[in-house]
């Protein structure tokens, strides 16, 4: 294994994406639970869950549409920051966040829903603010489920392949994450190097778990 860059890229991507996924996932889950209108709830839930139902390459395709040079967000970034997202390192983060988000969101939502709703109502009748109820009651009692959701999301972000390949490509030293590197080495016939990368991924996953 001569090239350490995939490890570094993967670590950076996975860390930043889990940070975003974790907090956004928590807040979206809390928001969804508070919606009282059932049909809006189901539609939003469907949209947020979509990235684990759709094939990764299809998600990547849509991301390319949105973040590509001619896509709405991609164009905005080029016009205002002169920065091309697609096929750059941030694209790996975008792909990882989008693909790992549903896992975090669903785990957090499930964990929140298992907290006895009487506890929340008790907090309200005791005059606790909604923010205090969220952290001291809901979050504190849902913690085990939230953490396990975070680990799943981290593992998914670390291992993301299809959408990353589509949106960020496989550019050595820039967007070539560990899963990409495994693929590339195998494709090039270097089973030995690929195996080294596999060991690293499995090792990082196990540390996280």
């Amino acid at each position, binding site marked *: 294994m001569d090239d350490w860059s995939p490890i570094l890229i993967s670590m950076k991507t996975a860390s930043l994406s889990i940070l975003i996924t974790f907090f956004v996932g928590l807040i979206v889950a809390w928001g969804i639970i508070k919606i009282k209108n059932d049909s809006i709830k189901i539609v939003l839930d469907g949209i947020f869950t979509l990235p684990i139902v759709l094939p990764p390459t299809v998600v990547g395709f849509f991301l390319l549409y949105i973040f590509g040079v001619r896509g709405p967000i991609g164009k905005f970034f080029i016009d205002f920051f002169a920065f091309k997202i697609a096929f750059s390192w941030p694209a790996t983060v975008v792909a990882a966040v989008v693909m790992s988000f549903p896992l975090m969101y669903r785990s957090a939502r499930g964990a929140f829903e298992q907290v006895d709703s*009487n506890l929340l*109502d008790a907090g309200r009748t005791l*005059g*606790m603010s909604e923010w205090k109820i969220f952290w001291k009651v809901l979050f504190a009692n849902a913690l085990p489920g939230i953490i396990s959701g975070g680990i799943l999301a981290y593992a998914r972000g670390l291992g993301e392949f299809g959408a990353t390949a589509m949106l960020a490509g496989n550019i050595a030293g820039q967007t070539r994450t560990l899963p990409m590197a495994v693929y590339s080495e195998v494709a090039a016939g270097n089973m030995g190097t690929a195996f080294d990368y596999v060991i690293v991924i499995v090792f990082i996953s196990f540390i996280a778990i």
Partner: protein
Amino acid sequence: MSNKLLKVNIHKELNEFDLDVDFELKNGCLGILGPSGCGKSMTLKSIAGIVDPDNGIVSLTTGEKTVYFDSDKKINLKPQKRNVGYLFQNYALFPNMTVEENVGIGLPNNDENVVSEMIRRFHLEGLEKRYPRQLSGGQQQRVALARIMAYGPDVILLDEPFSAMDTVLKEQLRRELANFLNKFSGFSVLVTHDRDEAFQFCDELIILDKGKIIAKGKTVDLFENPGKVEVARLTGCKNISKIEIIDDYHVKSLDWDVTFEVSEKVSPNIAYIGIRAHDIYPGQKDDVNALDASNSSKLEMPFEWQITLTNGLLWKLDKQMREHEFEIPKYLKVDPKNILLLEE
């Protein structure tokens, strides 16, 4: 005391029926008695602000008047602003906090004096650092009450406080809670399906069935003169029969096949009679309302005999624990004034 008033008049569409509850409470404890799923808890939650009624008014007057909810004026105070204490069926203690933390959580600046006073008042000394799962059912209930009282509410809402409890514990905790409520100067509303609890705690009572109030009044009056079949059943009347009116003072029971003399004039809308199982006495063949008790079956309980006549009538008779023999009399009788005349 004279100016205090809790006013509730709410309407809410539920899945199975509409809930319509309307009462005014001047002081003390109001009971809402009804079978499971009659809308009792929904009423409490509407008062607390946990659930929003479709329309109506909830207001509290203690000195000045606070409107909790008014659909016309579009007022809907948050639960946080209502100053209402809610005792949940499972107590809803925060499992991640100690007893101390649970009691203090509702206080604006976690005032230690108030917490330690409540700990003392509810006999929780020595349990301050424990977590709810380390407490017995009785201790949990005391922590929940301490938590509510630390917050100093104007109204306490009690949601079936004893329904998930062992018999041994239940009776003791009922006495504890009854003593506590006697000393409490605010309003309280207790929801239950148990007639003993309703009788013990509540000065006034509402009987709720499928979301509608079917009777309302002083607790003792409702127990003595239920007036309606469902009220009689919920207040514990064991013998209820459809009748045929014979004349102004005589009715024929269709279920037991006996004719009874009654003490009040029977109006045409009376369709049932009720006889409490305790209101039957040994008698003679030629007594008024005599019942043939031959071939009855008897069942021994620790402190009462339950005798079922061949026609299905149930007679309960107090006994001492050491008595195990009992000769069923040949005839029983029912005093005409003990026959409850009931509307549909």
